[in-house]
């Protein structure tokens, strides 16, 4: 089986890797690039744990072939915090205890970042529909929604 050479950008850094044709982006992120913040839950695009941004667009990394990363700009959970510390979305998830086991959290935070870039002041319905592709089996979702609402308010004040 011949491997493909991929040149891409992950969290602003140029990255090269070799991939088998059928390997997914989440496979390569976790197993080759040691970017294990992105979680793999269902592997079929249902749970959202592997949410990443590809060219600014929210997608499931389990439904993207690693080979498709050629020339793309990818943002993972590792790219959300800044040198100054946690991103306000991350801080609000902590403050509101919007997580228990934490497996779904990286996906939620990446999805929330995409949400607030598109809808800086989302109402609750918009938040719930946008995040409907992210499953959490612990929290019951209300804490997550509150954390997102608070993060939106904080980011709106900063802007």
């Amino acid at each position: 089986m011949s491997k493909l050479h991929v040149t891409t950008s992950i969290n602003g850094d140029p990255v090269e890797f070799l991939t088998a044709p059928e390997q997914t982006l989440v496979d390569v992120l976790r197993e080759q690039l040691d970017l294990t913040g992105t979680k793999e839950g269902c592997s079929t695009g249902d749970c959202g744990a592997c949410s990443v941004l590809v060219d600014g667009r929210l997608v499931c990394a389990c439904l993207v072939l690693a080979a498709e990363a050629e020339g793309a700009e990818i943002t993972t959970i590792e790219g959300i915090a800044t040198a100054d510390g946690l991103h306000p979305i991350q801080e609000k998830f902590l403050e509101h205890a919007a997580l228990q086991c934490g497996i779904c959290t990286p996906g939620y935070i990446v999805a929330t970042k995409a949400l607030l870039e598109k809808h800086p002041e989302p109402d609750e319905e918009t938040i719930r529909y946008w995040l409907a592709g992210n499953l959490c089996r612990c929290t019951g979702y209300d804490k997550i929604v509150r954390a997102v609402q608070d993060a939106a308010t904080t980011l709106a004040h900063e802007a």
Partner: protein
Amino acid sequence: MGSFAYVAPKTVRETTEKLAELSGAGTPTQIMAGGTDVLVQLRTVNRAARTLVDIKGLAETNRLDIGADETYIGAAIPSAVLNENNDLKTLFPGLTEAADLIGSTQIQGRASIGGNLCNSSPAGDSIPALIANGAVCVIAGPGGERELAVEDFVTGVGQNALAADELLLGLKLPNPGPRTGDAYLRFIPRTEMDIAVAGCGVRLDLDEAGVCTSARVGIGAVAPTALLVPAAAEALIGTKVDDAALAAAGAACSEAASPITDKRGTVEYRTKVISVLCRRAGAIARDRAAK
């Protein structure tokens, strides 16, 4: 046992030549756009090795062109991109709403209506909406392009009219007239992210007096393929799309349906629900046309 390969051609010619070469050599191929069906199937129902032919790199599959008389939608454009285009949403609200019903935000970042059509599921939500809108498939092969009415594209469950060396480039839709409306409704037991129990798309034109002059009705998830229902359209044409006409159109949809019983619904239930969806979608299309 063969091995997997991935190719991402940059031109239509390169794509059809690659498909012809691979199919000629007996190598299984799989065209993919957003991959939201293909990659799931590759991991579950069909794990056999094949060459994945990614058609997202072609200009023709990414082009969105709203012309004077018709609109061309590239087969690989993600539904999220379609729903960010306000001109397209204004022209074809039923179609863009159908695309917006498919999957989560993450899925819509990749999934395309061209892929939904080529996946050829009986329950693909965009297919009845495309049928209602009179969409025409633009198909490329080694000999050039051909066109095919969308209702003739899907030939069975998971099967379509594409030859091994052909691909779907995009869909052409006639633009709405001065008093045209379209709508798509589906029924699912939850608020979103489920597979249609039944779905119905309606597009109709009204004259200045509010009388329906033409109509197309497409139904999904109630037969092996989505269907055009001419009898439902005939029940609307010449009427003011009042309750009686809508009831007759709904009855025609029930008559045309040949559903199966599965965990989502029984034959009896689907047959009933498709008529209700036709009535409601017809009323929405009428009100949009009258605006």
